[in-house]
């Protein structure tokens, strides 16, 4: 047995196995909770139930072939993964991507960020017993999927973009679609806000639950909304502005206590910020002519020069980085993915100590652990 069991000195506990096939464990996570009464003394985490060998697979596929695999990392926001990988390879090759392609990438990434946050807020609601917001939000999520599908034919696993740009232009009536979606999204977010945010029970369930201090969060390697909830204003889009993000005007929301409520609120605000970014990006996009290039000049078979690179972007969950080592052939020599929730989930044991079983569920949901990128 693990170190948790050693830590708990008294015999006065019951082990409750939560997962893998458990409603709140997203199918593949497993936490063995040591509880005394309803209080959790500690948890042993067991991951790897979705370890599919993505990194090994990457070493055996060509650079382009690996893009579809990145879809399956964080399947809630596949496009962010695609873009992160492509940008890493482009950085390795030293390719400059045309502005139009960058704008399309930004629009799509932000859309997928909204879709990801929708899943989180919906599931957090379901796990805390409020089912209805999930359905309201999922209707809008379907609309986002329709835009994706209509852009490149896939709903969930988009395989968006190519190394060096994107494969096609935004469809002509994107503007009307986006405005419709925006209206619906605003309404759904507003409804969710009304149903949850100021609900007394919701506040009781989330405020002050599993807080974490900024120092601890940094030491554990938190990134993204979970780190921002602790009050650290760190967003790669602002701090290490990649692509065209330095040109946009958007806020980075921060919380104070790093509790479940802050994590939830940050997601709610970020959805609105993302909508702002999409508006601005689309304004820029409209100023470009229809014949602007979409792809940089890259060879058909990609053979980056020998070398290694690490590049990270701000995915919906936090810093999503790709370390790629190239040996000069058409296949990467080594790909290492730095998934955001991997580092966050480590801290789960520390977060949950002394809280109650119900908080375990709330905390897990609010961290947004996606098994696909956690286990790779």
């Amino acid at each position, binding site marked *: 047995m693990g170190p948790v069991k050693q830590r708990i000195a008294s015999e006065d506990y*019951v082990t*409750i*196995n939560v997962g893998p096939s*458990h*409603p*709140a464990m997203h199918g593949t996570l497993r936490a063995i909770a040591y509880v005394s009464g*309803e209080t959790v003394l500690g948890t042993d985490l067991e991951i790897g139930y979705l370890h599919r060998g993505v990194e090994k697979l990457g070493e055996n596929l060509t650079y382009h072939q690996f893009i579809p695999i990145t879809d399956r990392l964080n399947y809630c926001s596949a496009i962010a993964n695609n873009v992160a990988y492509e940008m890493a390879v482009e950085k390795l090759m030293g390719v400059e991507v045309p502005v139009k392609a960058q704008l399309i990438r930004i629009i799509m990434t932000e859309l997928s960020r909204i879709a990801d946050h929708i899943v989180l807020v919906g599931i957090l*609601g*379901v*796990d*805390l*017993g*409020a*089912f*209805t917001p999930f*359905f*309201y939000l999922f*209707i809008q999520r379907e609309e986002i999927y329709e835009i994706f599908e209509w852009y490149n034919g896939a709903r969930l696993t988009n395989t968006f973009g190519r190394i060096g740009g994107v494969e096609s232009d935004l469809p002509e009536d994107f503007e009307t679609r986006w405005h419709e979606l925006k209206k619906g999204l605003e309404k759904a977010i507003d409804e969710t806000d009304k*149903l*949850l945010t100021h*609900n007394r*029970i*919701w506040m*009781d*369930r989330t405020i002050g639950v599993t807080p974490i201090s900024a120092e601890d969060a940094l030491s554990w390697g938190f990134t993204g909304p979970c780190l921002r909830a602790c009050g650290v204003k760190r967003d790669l889009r602002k701090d290490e502005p990649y692509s065209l993000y330095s040109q946009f005007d958007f806020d980075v929301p921060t919380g104070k206590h790093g509790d479940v409520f802050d994590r939830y609120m940050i997601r709610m605000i970020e959805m609105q910020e993302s909508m702002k970014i999409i508006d601005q990006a689309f304004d820029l996009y409209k100023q470009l002519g229809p014949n602007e290039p979409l792809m940089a000049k890259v060879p058909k078979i990609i053979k980056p020069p020998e070398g290694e690179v690490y590049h990270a972007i701000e995915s919906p969950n936090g810093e999503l980085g790709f370390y790629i080592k190239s040996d000069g052939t058409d296949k990467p020599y080594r790909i290492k993915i730095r998934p955001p929730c991997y580092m966050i989930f480590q801290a789960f044991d520390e977060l949950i100590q002394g809280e*109650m*079983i*119900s*908080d*375990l*569920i709330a905390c897990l949901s609010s961290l947004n652990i996606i098994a696909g990128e956690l286990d790779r």
Partner: protein
Amino acid sequence: MNEWTIAIIKVVFIWSWTLLIATIMTWVERRGSALIQDRLGPNIAGPFGLFQPLADGIKLFTKEEFAPKHAHKILFTLGPVLFAIQAFSAYAVIPFGDKIVINAKEIVLQVADVNIGFLFVLAVGSLAVYGFVVGGWGSNNKYSLLGGLRATAQLLSYEVPLGLAMLAVCMTYGSFSLREISLDQAGTFLGFLPNWGIFKQPLGFLVFIVAAYAEANRVPFDLPEAESELVAGYHTEYGGMRLGLYLFGEYVNLYTLSALMVTIYFGAWHIPYVDMSSYLGPLAYGIVSFLVFFLKCAFFLWLFVWVRWTIPRFRFDQLMGLGWKSLIPLGLLNLFVTAFLIQITV
């Protein structure tokens, strides 16, 4: 017709009626949740999916029934049976209408009008605990046991405020008999309000309805079966008809509690400002009073569904805190206010 025949007819009628309501409630719950959530809900089985509960019932009936190896075989079966029996029995003293006259014989629309009235409901309600304890313990499963313990602690905690609210009602009406309480609610109160219990006991009703939600294990108090925490709570190991009994029992409980609320606080079969018996013949009056009573119940049943799909659930300590720190003091306050008002008015 002798008394036994009438009694048997009444018993059979109300038993099947509660069963029917429980069945329809599952449909209402599903369609209602679908309505709230922008969905369609079950609509394939029969018109508007009305036969969905029937399909569920048949499926549960023909599902495999087995007791897990480590479970206690007797208790495993006894749990749902105890739960269902208490759920069905509680309705025995609650009226479902005023009275009906057939062949010059007056039949009271109530299985048994006894002088201990709602105390019987409370007493039988306190036996609901056994369904959870025996089932949860008999399953020999951690989730079940924890669910059973939670259920029991919750039921116990909320029985006290329920009893306190009833105590104030009993002070106001000076009777335990639910029929007498219903009859007392005819006419008007203070000249313009319907003479309903809610206007005499507003605080008591608040305490009662919250406690009733907790007693029925409904959101926001559905911790015993909180599916995101304890898989399915005390009925994790149950499948087939045993599970069906738990599910049915829950809905029957809902109906009993709704009927109790209507009887005590919402004027039973009375329509405000209208004296039905003067307009209608004896037979028609009986039927109309039954319908009015049922419609009032239906509102509360719908309220149960509505609340369930709107708000999240409590955490266990918050639930206990609400019960012991808020509801019981409120119930006692209500008791004293009632006593004080009676003292200064008599």
